[in-house]
């Protein structure tokens, strides 16, 4: 049936949990594009046939016209599915840059799900965000939740070692150790699940 493969592609995107990225389905994506080419060829040959019969392509309403129309509509449908797939993934990728981290701060297992062009897109988006933030000299991707106190208490959930230097101090962030940190520093580690906020 026409447009079935494109439907499967969109369906696969929809079947995951909301806002979660799956591995880019290159195989199916290519298959849909191939199908588009098939439709295009069929469309062209039908139009050629009409021209050979000496019919006016724009006005004649023959069986060939309706055949060509169906191929045309299928093409448009496939295009829409492909566009929606890429567009919605790009949406999630931009979201990742804001919520989880820029460039190399993103966990490996998520980056593996990108296609090549998506990886480039993520990098470019991160870079423009970074340059914007350095122009403003302000971190715009922190304090998404309005702060009550500039400092918070956190517990480290995974061994981070002492290599991390925060804006006002450096400490040994061993697993299960507790720290009193600047909220803006801790925020990105919490977002990535490496620390948790403690409430008294």
């Amino acid at each position, binding site marked *: *049936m*026409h*447009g079935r493969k494109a*439907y499967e592609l*969109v*369906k696969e*995107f*929809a079947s995951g*949990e909301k*806002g*979660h*990225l799956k591995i880019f389905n290159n195989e199916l994506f290519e298959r849909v594009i191939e199908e588009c080419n098939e439709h295009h060829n*069929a469309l062209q*040959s*039908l139009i050629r046939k009409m021209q050979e019969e000496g019919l006016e392509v724009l006005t004649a*309403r023959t*069986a*060939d016209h*309706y*055949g*060509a*129309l*169906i*191929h045309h*509509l*299928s093409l448009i*449908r496939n295009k*829409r*599915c492909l*566009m*929606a797939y890429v*567009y*919605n993934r790009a949406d*999630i990728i931009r*979201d*990742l840059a804001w*919520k*989880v981290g820029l460039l190399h701060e993103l*966990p490996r297992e*998520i980056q593996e799900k990108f296609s090549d062009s998506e990886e480039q897109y993520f990098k470019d988006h991160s870079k423009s965000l970074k340059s914007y933030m350095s122009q403003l000299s302000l971190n715009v991707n922190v304090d998404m*939740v309005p702060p*009550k106190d500039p400092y*918070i208490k956190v517990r480290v959930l*995974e061994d981070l070692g002492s290599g991390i230097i925060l804006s006002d101090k450096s400490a040994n962030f061993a697993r299960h150790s507790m720290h009193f940190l600047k*909220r803006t520093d*801790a*925020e990105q580690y*919490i*977002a*990535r*699940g490496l620390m*948790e*906020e*403690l*409430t008294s």
Partner: protein
Amino acid sequence: MANYYNIDDILTEEEFVPVVFHKSANGVIIDPSSETNSVEQGAKVELPLWLAQELYLRQAVSISVPACFNQKTRLEIQADAACVDLKSRSPFFYEFGCKIVPLVGDKTVEVLLLSAFKIRYKEILTKAYTAAYTATSQFLTLLTKEETNLYEAAQSSMAAFKKWRMGGPRLQRASVLGRKRKPIE
């Protein structure tokens, strides 16, 4: 084309509708009963909505009411709308219904959708606010995609309210990362 990129809208338009061809069409394989790759005039075929809709606008086909709005469903909804399994009828029952109405010119479908939604809406909100998760898993399988969204919205608003009242950590792991897996030791 306001919903051009909308995933749910695309999925809704993949639902099948029964059509009758008024014109014949060459070079397409959409009629499974046909031996050649063409459709005869008067052929009865099931087409996805996106195709049927466009062909209808060009007066090439006429559309009849899909099976999910048949008499049996109507009777069940009249009996007790809250217990009808609408998801198996169509995962986008309401949206699909709204799209099909102008194409079939059957006003009773509108009435059916409205009465079904009114009763079920109340039920969904009550369940979302009060019941524990285990008690509702049976109920959730009956809901269409639109109703599931509504249910989740109601639940998250309830959770947000509770959190606001009780206090607790305000910063959390980004939900895009999914649930926490056990670290590999």
